[in-house]
Every structure is written in structure tokens, then in C-alpha cells.
């Protein structure tokens, strides 16, 4: 008797899953973007406390506490019965950087949501994805009162590698967000190794 054996025919084909990261500075509109296009669900993660949390988390009197709860949410788009896309907003605060590796593991790509009034907030995310060769694009979120910026200027300001798309975005509008995600996946396809002819 072998309980480890799993009869694949006993269930329908397992669903394929994919994920896209939504990065950007605090207040750039990540949650707005995710909720504009997907069913949003709460998630708790219990993370190891690192020294980066010291001074922010009050750890006095709980010397042996080594984990802290991080509340976040994620978006789910059921595309077909056997295909689901997940959207994960990356935690904006610097002390949650250690979660990015986990979130980016196996990701199709990433959207860096930028606010032209605070472009410097996007540097860290751009650097992270460039270093790890994760396909990404920069989506410039339209904030009321923010100056309209030429995509080329944004590319220069962020010192993007040639070929990194910069697209306009209204994180509140489903169609706009859809367009951004379509652009990202198309970009990822151009980066995908071509099968030998």
C-alpha cells in the first residue's frame, strides 16, 4: 500500500497558476490597481523579525519573539477553470524587503507603479528587478495635479535599461490596468527564450 502515490486521474487537470508583482513606493496606488481588475483577498504572513524591524516594532519585553505578522492582500483573476493569475503588491516599507524574494519567486514579471511627483520611490524596485533579470515595466500612474511627463523623460530619470517599457496608467480604471498587464506579458514574451528553429 502506497499512500504517497497520487492518482492524477482522480482529479481534473490541476489548474495552472501565474503571478505578477505590483511594486512601487508607499501611496503609489498598488492596492488601487490590484482591486481595479481582480477579486482582492486578505492574507496574513508571519515573517521572521530581522534587525531591520528593530526600533520600529516594539520588541521590549518580548525578547523571544522572532516573528511578526504582516497583513497584506493579493488579487486573483480566474481566467479559465484551469488558469488563474495572481497579483501581489509588494510591501512598500523598506523593512519588508526580505519578502520580495518570496513574492518574486516564479513570477511572470512585475509592474513598477510610479508617481511622477516621487520618482525616487521607484528606484529600489527598478534596481531589484533589473538585478534579477525579472521582466518589468514602469507604469506611470496618473494622479490629479501631477505634471504630465513624457515616458522618455521617466526612462531617463529612472535610468532604465534600453527596451524597458514605460506606459501611462490610471490605477482606478480597469481597462487601463488591463492594458498595463497586457503590455507587461507581451514584454515578458519578448524576453522569453525562443525555441530553436
Amino acid at each position, binding site marked *: 500500500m502506497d499512500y504517497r502515490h497520487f492518482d492524477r486521474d482522480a482529479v481534473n487537470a490541476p489548474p495552472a497558476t501565474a503571478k505578477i508583482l505590483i511594486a512601487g513606493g508607499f501611496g503609489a496606488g498598488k492596492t488601487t490597481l490590484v482591486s481595479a481588475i481582480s477579486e482582492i483577498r486578505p*492574507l496574513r504572513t508571519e515573517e521572521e523579525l530581522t534587525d531591520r524591524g528593530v526600533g520600529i516594532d516594539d520588541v521590549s519585553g518580548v525578547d523571544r519573539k522572532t516573528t511578526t505578522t504582516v497583513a497584506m492582500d493579493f488579487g486573483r483573476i480566474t*481566467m479559465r477553470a484551469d488558469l488563474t493569475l495572481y497579483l501581489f503588491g509588494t510591501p512598500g516599507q523598506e523593512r519588508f524587503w526580505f519578502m520580495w524574494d518570496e513574492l518574486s519567486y516564479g513570477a511572470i514579471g512585475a509592474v513598477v507603479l510610479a508617481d511622477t511627483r516621487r520618482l525616487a520611490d521607484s528606484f529600489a524596485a527598478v534596481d531589484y528587478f533589473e538585478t534579477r533579470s525579472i521582466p518589468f515595466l514602469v507604469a506611470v500612474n496618473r494622479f490629479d495635479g501631477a505634471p504630465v511627463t513624457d515616458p522618455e523623460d521617466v526612462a531617463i530619470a529612472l535610468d532604465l535599461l534600453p527596451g524597458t517599457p514605460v506606459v501611462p496608467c490610471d490605477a482606478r480604471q480597469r481597462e487601463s490596468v488591463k492594458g498595463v498587464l497586457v503590455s507587461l506579458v507581451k514584454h515578458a*514574451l519578448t524576453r522569453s527564450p525562443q525555441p530553436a528553429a
Partner: protein
Amino acid sequence: MSAPKDRWFDREAGPIVRPYAVTRGRTTPDSGPYIGLIDVVVAAGPLPPSGGRLGREHRRLLDHCQQPVTVVDLASDADLPVGVVRVLLGDLSECGALQIISSPPGRVTNERLLRDVLNGLQAL
């Protein structure tokens, strides 16, 4: 008189048992492969005899994955932190009660998956 809204009741007050109490202090699975956030898991038929030592939370998780489900959805459904779910899934997998169907590791370069996602997005 304090306003009732200042008080937290039931689930809003948070878990009574600290999350890692249900894993007996373990923060990572005892063995087995890395379990990713969007990996799909499914209960693998009847509970084996060695399943007798599984706790209440193990069984609760197993109830939630009678159909294939991703680790994040499972954590959200069960209202448990992902780290805890991962440890419990490791236990379930080890005793044969669960099948972990891993997603592709590392960067996704599967052109077919990308095309499927592209078509799916365009059809929204």
C-alpha cells in the same frame, strides 16, 4: 462609558493561540521541497494510518483542499499565516495525506503559459 467600537470581539481580537503554537514552534517545514505561494495542493485520498497524529489545524487545512487549491488561497480561506500553512502542509505531505503540485521554479520562461495569460487578460 467606553464606546463599544473601541473593543474587539471574537475574530477581530486576533487569534487566541499564537500562530506558531499550532506548528509546535516550527517556522519551516521539517523536510520536502520549497512550497511556493502559488503552488497547487490537493488532498490525496483517505487519511493514512500515520495521519492519527495530525492535529486539528492539519485536518482543517485538509478539509479546505479537497479540490486543488493554491497555497495563498488556502492561507486566506483558513485565515492562517502563510508560514504556518507551509509547515502544516509539509507535515501533511510527509504522511502522504497531501499532494503538492509545484509550479515552475525560478523565472517563468514558459512561453505557453505566458501566451495563455496574455489571451486571458485580453479576453477580460
